[in-house]
């Protein structure tokens, strides 16, 4: 796994020759990423006959490009209509949607795209260089450490609920309890399912996400003419290329932010099963913690959009690391790539780097080239996609309701999931109207099962000894980090108050 410059030059030139595969894959990825219920993973499954028929290298380039661009696509509806295309984009609307409402949709898209592309590009290159070390991360983060990582994500609930902490916490803990619905991972006993078989396998995320964000929003916005305020509408209609480039400039001026939040994504992505949602939440929470202006988060703040988008794209290259190094995929999409590569007789593991370096490093080169080519889509996409927000709610609400309900149906193809989305829509609507944060509920629903799983597993490993959560050195370092990230904002606030008083 030594670094060899000649190999890399050859690799990149070679990958660029596949532009004809990459470009269509980028557009397909943007589309499927933007439709809730679809994802890179299930699109690759649908296109499996096509992918299997390709040469392994071309198939891999195609899948990687689709995967990377779908991450960026998922941010589009999250920003414009408050509907994250996938769970990985669930933290994106926190600051993206307020920007849209102010008529800065174009800017927000540009910021999200720049963060996605540069965050993704940077972490991909980093992964290429740091492969030997990164591959070790999974060996250190076990159940105990993952409990703390989950709590980092969950502590975000307290941050986004800053305006009324009590109500924010109630929303978040309600979400966690809803996330605990289903059969537990050890004894497989169904709990809190109201007798519905469809809930045995936990609350499905897409219907929850679609209901809490899209359906409730569609019911709420019919009061107004469009989802924008009157001022926002005017701003939007006047907006031209200048707005787009202002977005690009704003995002690039936060280059340091892009770097460190995308690295958070990369590290979390390397852990099998952790995924983009947790990375985005942790990055957002960390970004807010160390910000000089934490009170601006949630109001359309640039860093609040940069952090989750850089992080969830940082995850993409990360998930490929355990796949290639130990043959264990880091996420659903990586798992399907594994199937395709195995079909072609490629064996994963350390030997891959000796036997087939172009296949081992190839995915990262393909990802880097994809992100590079995506740079050129930033401006036009941001400029024209954002026009959707001036469409009247008369048309938008019915379209959102029908198509997101369809999206709720797609992943598991249960009619039940459409009713579930509607039920979450009602919860979301009540929450919205009575001052509870829907994002806090969603964070709970997403992270609840993960937290419970790691916790239960840790308890099973320790045979019921609760002190197991403090049993590892790395875990304890993470605990200290967690305590600091919860305490620091208050200390910073105190210091600022003192300075202002002085």
């Amino acid at each position, binding site marked *: 796994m030594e670094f060899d410059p000649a190999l890399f030059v050859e690799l990149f030139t070679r990958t660029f020759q596949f532009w004809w595969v990459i470009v269509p894959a980028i557009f397909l990825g943007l589309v499927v990423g933007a439709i809730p219920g679809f994802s890179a993973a299930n699109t690759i499954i649908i296109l499996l006959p096509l992918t299997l028929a390709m040469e392994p290298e071309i198939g891999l380039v195609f899948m990687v490009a689709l995967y990377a661009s779908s991450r960026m696509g998922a941010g589009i509806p999250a920003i414009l209509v408050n509907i994250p295309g996938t769970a990985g984009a669930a933290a994106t609307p926190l600051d993206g949607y307020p920007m849209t409402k102010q008529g800065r949709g174009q800017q927000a898209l540009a910021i999200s795209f720049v963060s996605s592309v540069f965050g993704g590009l940077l972490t991909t290159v980093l992964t290429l260089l740091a492969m030997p070390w990164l591959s070790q991360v999974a060996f250190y983060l076990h159940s105990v450490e993952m409990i703390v990582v989950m709590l980092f994500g969950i502590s975000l609930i307290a941050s986004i609920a800053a305006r009324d902490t009590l109500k924010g916490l109630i929303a978040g803990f309600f979400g966690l309890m809803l996330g605990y619905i*289903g059969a537990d991972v050890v004894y497989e006993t169904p709990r809190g399912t109201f007798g519905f*078989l469809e809930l045995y396998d936990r609350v499905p995320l897409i219907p929850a996400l679609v209901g809490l964000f899209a359906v409730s929003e569609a019911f709420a916005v019919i009061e107004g003419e469009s989802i924008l305020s009157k001022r926002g509408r005017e701003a939007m209609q006047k907006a031209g290329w200048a707005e787009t480039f202002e977005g690009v400039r704003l995002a690039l001026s936060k280059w340091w932010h892009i770097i460190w939040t995308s690295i958070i994504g990369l590290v979390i992505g390397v852990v099998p099963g952790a995924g983009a949602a947790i990375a985005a939440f942790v990055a957002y929470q960390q970004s807010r913690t160390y910000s000089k202006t934490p009170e601006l988060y949630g109001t359309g703040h640039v860093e609040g959009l940069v952090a989750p988008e850089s992080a969830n794209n940082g995850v993409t290259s990360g998930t490929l690391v355990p796949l290639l190094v130990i043959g264990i995929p880091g996420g659903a999409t990586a798992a399907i790539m594994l199937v395709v590569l195995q079909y072609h007789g490629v064996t994963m593991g350390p030997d891959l780097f000796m036997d087939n370096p172009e296949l081992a490093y190839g995915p990262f080169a393909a990802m880097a080239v994809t992100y590079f080519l995506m740079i050129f889509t930033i401006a036009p996409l941001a400029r024209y996609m954002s026009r959707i927000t001036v469409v009247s709610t008369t048309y938008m609400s019915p379209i959102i309701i029908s198509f997101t309900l369809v999206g709720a149906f797609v992943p598991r193809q249960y009619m039940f999931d459409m009713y579930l989305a509607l039920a979450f829509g009602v919860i979301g609507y009540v929450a919205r109207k009575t001052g509870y944060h829907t994002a806090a509920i969603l964070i709970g629903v997403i992270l609840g099962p993960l937290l419970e799983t790691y916790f239960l597993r840790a308890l099973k490993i320790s045979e019921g000894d609760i002190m197991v959560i403090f049993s590892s050195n790395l875990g304890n370092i993470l605990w200290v980090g967690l305590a600091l990230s919860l305490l620091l904002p208050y200390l910073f606030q105190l210091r600022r108050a003192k300075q202002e008083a002085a």
Partner: protein
Amino acid sequence: MFDDYFDELDRRRFLTGSAAAVGAGLLAGLPATNAFAAGFPSRNMKVYVPTREGGGADRNLRAFTSIWKKYLKVNFEPSFYPGAAGRVGYEKYMGIASDDGHDLLFGNMGPEVLNWVVKKPTGFNVSDLIYFGQMDRDPGIVFVGRKSKFKSLKEIVEEGKKRTIKVGVSRLAHPATLGILALGRHTGAKFNVVPLSGGKRTRAGVATGEMDCGALPSGGIARRGKNFRILGIFDDSNPMPDLVKGAVLVNKEFGMNLPPLIAGARAFGIKKAAIDKHPANFKILTDTSNKVFGDPDYQKVLKKTKVPMELFTKSSSQAEIAKYVANITKIGEQYKDLLTGKS
């Protein structure tokens, strides 16, 4: 059974049917008698799969039905009902599937029968479902990561007498889990089985060192030969002597008397009610599915799955299946307390 079916046919249909059957038989290069049952199947076959799309069951189902459809002359439409260790799919199938023979289940007999024994859902009895067409026979095994200090199963058992050994398993109600628990009870070694939800995560748990060893079906581990070592097999013989070297047979090594703990035993299931109502249809299903095993194209699609060929069955016998289900049920009852955490 075939005679009953014959009686059901009216003369007119028989005549046109046999004429068509001869024609179809000639076209397909099959003996004409196969196509006598022109009335069944009259529509596409629907298959309920109690696991996720894209998993091992999906892979095997696609391979088998891609050949089977040639003999049944209709397509197969799988639908996936994952959740609660297969219980969702089973309850859906028993609840909503038709009993005219067009609706089948495709599952993994071992863990799923065991899960029924442990959980006893109220909706149906395990004997309301008859399995047929068993595709694979993949025994449970004990394995360690490439870098593990354990060189043999004996070493693990010895260490287990001094401290608790953490064993990663796919889920509690699983034949491989039963095997390791039985080994512990027999030798006095202490094993703490930790369910990691599926083979993929179990392999990860062992590879990353969070677990001391793991117990899973053999196929997924044997295929990744360089990353793992198989130390013990819960079967009467080593199914892959060329691929799995140095593994012991647990019964022989420790003087135990376990039935073969087949962890991967994927087969079709059909409601007993469907067989009772339409025995002829069931005969068509078993006859045609038995033909699949001998089809040279079937061997080709199996090779593409990359699963070691030794793990696929060459034929399927109803008597073997019944014996297997009875064995698993019996041993499941014996270890029920350990599998439910009630002890």
